[in-house]
């Protein structure tokens, strides 16, 4: 475990994750106080990445649960292996067991299928609790949110047939949301909240250089300046860091050393995913943006 925010920030840096001070403080406190970390921000700013990096840094397992509408206890927590139970029941019939014996045999851990939340509670590697990533919580429905509320406050799950299973070491919980709907206050209140914003120029440049070491220095600067410029436009979906990195990879694959009108036009689909946004960028606009990016790259 880390003893100061600086130590944690350095550890994240080793994993090529460049965290702002505020985010580092939030993560540090989440680790120290055992509270879940609730991350919001636009798509592609590195919310999910945090959980991955954190599990590597802490040398523990990452258990990921992708949320979707209708996610229920059967897919999130546990399910009984019905086929196995029926088979076993047929075998037991010959033994003439009583109902209670049969029930305790059939509803035992042997036939329990553990889903992510139960795994996260039970599992610990060398006594180390795993990192539990509850991804895109806004996609689930209120019923699941209510269930999660209960889980996150006590870190225990009760299975009617088996009893209550409590976590020995509570997992490090990271909850992310893209804000396609508001998450209920009651849940947010139990968490440490952090809003991840788009990075400023220097931070993004640092990320590009870390994640794509073979990118020509000038190109990296131009890419970053171009994307930063693009984010100030009124787009339906502004490009995230994920798009910046994808675009960098694309331009490297095309052996580019500099931005040019032609390549930008050809690779626009890597950064913009909506036709309305692509239409906004006519050749003159792109050329102006490239010129600005080049000036910015020289200056910065």
């Amino acid at each position, binding site marked *: 475990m880390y003893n100061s925010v600086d130590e944690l920030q350095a550890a994240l840096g080793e994993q090529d994750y460049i965290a702002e001070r505020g985010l580092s*403080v939030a993560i540090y*406190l989440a680790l120290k106080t055992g509270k879940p970390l609730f991350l919001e921000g636009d798509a592609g700013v590195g919310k999910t990445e945090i959980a991955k990096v954190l599990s590597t840094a802490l040398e523990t397992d990452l258990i990921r649960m992708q949320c979707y509408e209708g996610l229920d206890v059967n897919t999130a927590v546990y399910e*009984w292996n019905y086929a196995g139970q029926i088979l076993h029941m047929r075998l037991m019939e010959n033994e003439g067991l009583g109902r209670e014996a049969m*029930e305790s045999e*059939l509803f035992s851990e042997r036939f329990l299928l553990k889903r992510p939340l139960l795994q996260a509670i039970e599992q610990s590697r060398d006594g180390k609790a795993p990192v539990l990533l509850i991804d895109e919580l806004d996609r689930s429905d209120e019923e699941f949110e209510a269930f999660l509320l209960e889980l996150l406050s006590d870190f225990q799950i009760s299975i009617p047939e088996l009893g209550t299973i409590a976590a020995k070491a509570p997992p490090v919980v990271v909850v992310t949301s893209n804000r*396609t*709907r508001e998450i209920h206050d009651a849940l*947010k209140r139990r968490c440490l*909240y952090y809003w991840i914003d788009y990075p400023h120029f220097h931070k993004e440049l640092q990320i590009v250089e870390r994640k794509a070491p073979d990118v020509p220095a000038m190109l990296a600067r131009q890419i970053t300046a171009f994307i930063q410029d693009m984010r100030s436009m009124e787009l339906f979906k502004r490009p995230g860091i994920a798009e910046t990195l994808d675009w960098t990879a694309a331009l490297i694959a095309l052996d580019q050393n500099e931005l040019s009108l032609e390549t930008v036009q050809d690779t626009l689909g890597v950064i913009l995913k909506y036709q309305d946004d692509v239409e906004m960028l006519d050749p003159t606009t792109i050329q102006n943006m490239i010129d600005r990016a080049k000036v910015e790259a020289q200056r910065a």
Partner: protein
Amino acid sequence: MSQNGPIKGVFLGPADAPYDYHGGKLTHNLILFGRVCRALGMNVTPNRMMEVGRALAHIQLGRKQDFYYTLRSHLVNHPREFAYFDEAFEIFWRRPSDGFTTLNLQSLGEERRKKKTQFLPPLESSPSENGAKAEELDSSMIALVPTYSRQERLRHKDFAEMTAAELEMAKRVIAKMPESLGMRRTRRFESGKGRVINMRRLMKDMIRKNGDVTRLPTHRRKEKPRPVVLLCDISGSMERYTRVLLHFMHTLAGSLYQVESFVYSTDITRITRQIRQKNVDDALEDIGGTVLQWGGGTMTGECLHRFNWTWSRRVLGRGAVVMLITDGWDRGDIPLLHREMARLQLSCRRLIWLNPLLDVPEYEPLTRGAQALLPYVHDFLPITNLANLEVIVKALQNLSSRPSAEIYRQRYLA
């Protein structure tokens, strides 16, 4: 100490003494700060404050930045609150020059209301007024002067309180209000007759019957009411109806499931939170103070553009029904209106146009705006006598359970 009065005299020692962070004053100040945050609308509970206290033990208090983020990650849980928090933090946790700090909670609240009206050009401040205020202050206190402009007040809209007759009508309306504007099948199951076998129940049955299967228990998909989004025109041409329409929106917000409310004329404002208040007069007063584009021209295209860009992804999920309340008079960009209506129609389940400009029985939607709206709406509900909310409710009751297929036929089969 009243909530609204200034909290006076948190004594931090003489001005030249070093600020003692580790003394008992920190807890005291933390609690005061918590109250400030609560007054600003953040969800701060005593429990939360205790957690803050515990968390502070883990960080270096000397680093103001870390201190700031510790407080922020505990007390703020919505991006909209960042600005208020920052402001409060800045004012509260600075080193006071003369040993005292005073916070006037009300003035911060006032700042907050001002913040929401960003779309207005900055108002000129009158120097004489500020000067007079400054003199009233105790010179030994640092205080936030309530900045309240008379000019701004003029732009607020005052609604008369509801009369007894109106309240009576509202009650009748609520009783008759349909429970939803359509249902949606969710992906969740509930017990009852259906087509999917309920394995869990089957196992229980089999054990009870010693392994025999006598019947296959089933469960079915749960149904939920669709979310509703109300977009109400409050421009000049609608002014006569605004009050009754807001009453109507308040009624809908209170009786339907998940209602998001917006009003627009030259700009669009979300009023979901304000209109949710129980008391309709409070809600209207709040809205009157928040929305400042009352009675302006109608720029439906521009407003829908803003809606589609910033709000649609957050409120149109899960098969929402959109109800557009406008008379169809429009002074904005008509091609833009066409584009944005097309987009809106494609991103919601059902688009209902409620048109109140129908005092004339033989009204036909011939204005440019109306012509632009009509091809995209699933349902066109003309209301002849808007003074009577019951008419609207009747129209809603008569809505078919599904959007008409006419629009698809026109667009895709023609």
